[in-house]
């Protein structure tokens, strides 16, 4: 029996997809790359982006056509808005919430698919805790994502996640630490701790679980005990809950990587109010200053939305000012588009596509300038690099620095993939480096 799983959307969905794979494979299914060869076809969907939703519809219409000629089963899970759920129910054979993943074998058995796992007594409670207990089937042998929290209570007015994933639920700390310890034992080199709001981790459990800084401290201790080299990242934190203690812990452990992703979204206080972001630029700036003091060599990444409803030129210029002032190495810049389900979906999307696009280019250009200046500071330095893959350019390999800046260097040694090497930085570009491999 074979299966094909398409995952759309963010790293959270990718991490969930790894768990779905794990359950399906434990039922005896084998993954195939060509969907035409699969008996079971699934999508980890994302309602948050219209393009992703369009892809779901395109796929399921195609698969439903195939049903005329062969027997296949289709399913959908992931980050789905209630309104999309209603239409997916009519198109897919099966739809399940990620918290119901442990019941997937039972659901499939009820659908008429026998399996080894489905012979076992199913869990009668479906809780997020039990879905987290499923060991993911990691798609890489050196890079892994570890979910620590699901859902979001922040209700930023542009975002549908609180409506698709529901309330913030933190995974038990010990489970997270155990998973990371196992990954370290298996020689994983890059581990990203994931959540919609990683730094509000534990808030929902009041005092019964660790808070985020304490969790990071314990991860740091795993690093010390293991004596192994690896990097741990976290994404995304929310500036509202970003306390100094988190940065202090990062600065105390070498395995906690020198890279902070701190979504700003807008550089204007009034737009931040309208986005319901719950921080002001002055507070954001204080965190950036703390990062610069406590983690002087850290790279800083951010997320920015341009053309949010009502954003005027002056407000957009404040975002440009913020990029210049906070000196990001990377920013994920998005042109605002209303997300069904989010509060701002009901507000007038009054910035024209042309204006959004020109703001997007203006912001990207400023980012390119700033990132280049920042990257030049690394010129002629030796950077520790985790090697990811063979580059598209023949005779080159590609990796990432601890600060997550991509770097290419000449080599023909495939064995380097998944290992750390030292690279001498010979060229700095806006979003990448080029370099020469140092002698081992």
């Amino acid at each position, binding site marked *: 029996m074979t299966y094909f799983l398409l995952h759309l959307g963010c790293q959270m969905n990718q991490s969930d997809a790894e768990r779905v794979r794990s359950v399906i494979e434990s039922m005896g299914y084998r993954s195939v790359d060509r969907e035409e060869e699969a008996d079971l076809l699934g999508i980890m969907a994302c309602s948050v982006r219209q393009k992703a939703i369009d892809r779901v519809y395109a796929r399921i219409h195609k698969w439903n056509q195939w049903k005329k000629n062969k027997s296949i089963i289709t399913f959908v899970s992931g980050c789905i*808005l209630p309104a999309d*759920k209603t239409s997916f129910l009519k198109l897919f054979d099966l739809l399940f919430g990620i918290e119901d993943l442990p019941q997937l074998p039972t659901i499939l058995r009820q659908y008429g698919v026998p399996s080894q796992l489905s012979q076992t007594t199913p869990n009668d409670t479906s809780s997020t805790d039990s879905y987290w207990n499923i060991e993911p089937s990691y798609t890489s042998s050196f890079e892994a994502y570890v979910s620590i929290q699901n859902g979001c209570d922040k209700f930023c007015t542009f975002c549908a996640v609180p409506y698709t994933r529901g*309330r913030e*639920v933190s995974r038990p700390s010990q489970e997270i630490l155990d998973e990371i310890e196992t990954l370290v034992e298996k020689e994983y080199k890059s581990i990203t701790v994931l959540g919609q709001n990683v730094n509000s981790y534990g808030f929902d459990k009041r005092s019964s679980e660790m808070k985020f800084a304490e969790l990071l401290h314990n991860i740091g201790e795993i690093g010390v005990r293991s004596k192994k080299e690896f990097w741990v990242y976290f994404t995304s934190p929310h500036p509202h809950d970003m306390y100094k203690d988190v940065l202090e812990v990062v600065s105390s452990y070498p395995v906690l990587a020198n890279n902070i992703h701190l979504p700003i979204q807008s550089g204007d206080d*009034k737009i931040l*109010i309208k986005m*319901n972001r719950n921080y002001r630029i*002055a507070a954001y700036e204080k965190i950036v200053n703390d990062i610069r003091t406590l983690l002087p060599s850290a790279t800083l990444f951010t997320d920015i939305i341009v053309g949010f409803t009502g954003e005027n030129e002056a407000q957009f210029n404040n975002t440009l000012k913020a990029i210049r002032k906070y000196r990001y190495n990377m920013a994920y810049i998005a042109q605002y588009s209303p997300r069904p389900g989010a*509060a701002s979906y009901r507000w007038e999307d009054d910035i024209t596509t042309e204006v959004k696009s020109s703001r997007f280019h203006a912001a990207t250009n400023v980012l390119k300038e700033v990132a280049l200046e920042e990257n030049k500071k690394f010129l002629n330095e030796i950077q520790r690099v985790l090697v990811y893959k063979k580059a598209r350019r023949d005779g080159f390999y590609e990796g990432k620095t601890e600060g997550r800046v991509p770097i290419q260097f000449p080599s023909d040694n495939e064995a380097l993939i998944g290992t750390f090497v030292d690279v001498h930085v010979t060229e700095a570009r806006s979003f990448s480096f080029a370099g020469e491999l140092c002698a081992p």
Partner: protein
Amino acid sequence: MHSYQKHTVISVRNLTDTVYVLRMTREELEFSPGQFITVGLLNNVHMREYSIYSGVKDDYLEILVKDIPQGYLSSKLHQLSPGDEVRIEGPFGYFLLSEEHLSKPLHFIATGTGISPFHCFVRSHDIDTYTLVHGVSYGHEQYEYEDYSRKNIIQCTSRDTGGNQHMRVTAYMKNKELEHNAEVFLCGNSAMIYDIFDLLTAKEKPSEHIHAEVYF
């Protein structure tokens, strides 16, 4: 994980032709004054955010809603009858009065149903150090003013002379000097919130003392 709660409608109390209070069973919902909930009909996916209007000590749960005829949910909620059930999720939000705020001069500024979290504040906390500036179109739009202390409330009316001040909230606030340690809470439409925010920051009020909840 979605954790909807079913609450039963106790009453629908009309304050004007278009503004009403929906009272529901509390169902042990714990919240902090100033928070909002999301509300929807049973068997319907559409939810909307509403500030909690009732106080933390009340044994019922209330929201103050403006019926928007061209809107989706607000007019449907208006038509509910006692005994009907609604879906509620929450509470959410950070539009809160902290212990530290309680000892400071407080300025609550609202347009329309944006008065709702302030009603919850005064019903839940024992406070008298506040002024409430409420912007509406007409003087008859006095949403249960008897629940506030009369001396603390200023109604600004833009379309008639029925309020204490026949002017927009922004015009009223322009000439007002705030105490240096005042905390300002703004709630309602974003146009008013933006104007007051500009006004206050021009007067060098630090932004961390300006709190805001935008409805639209």
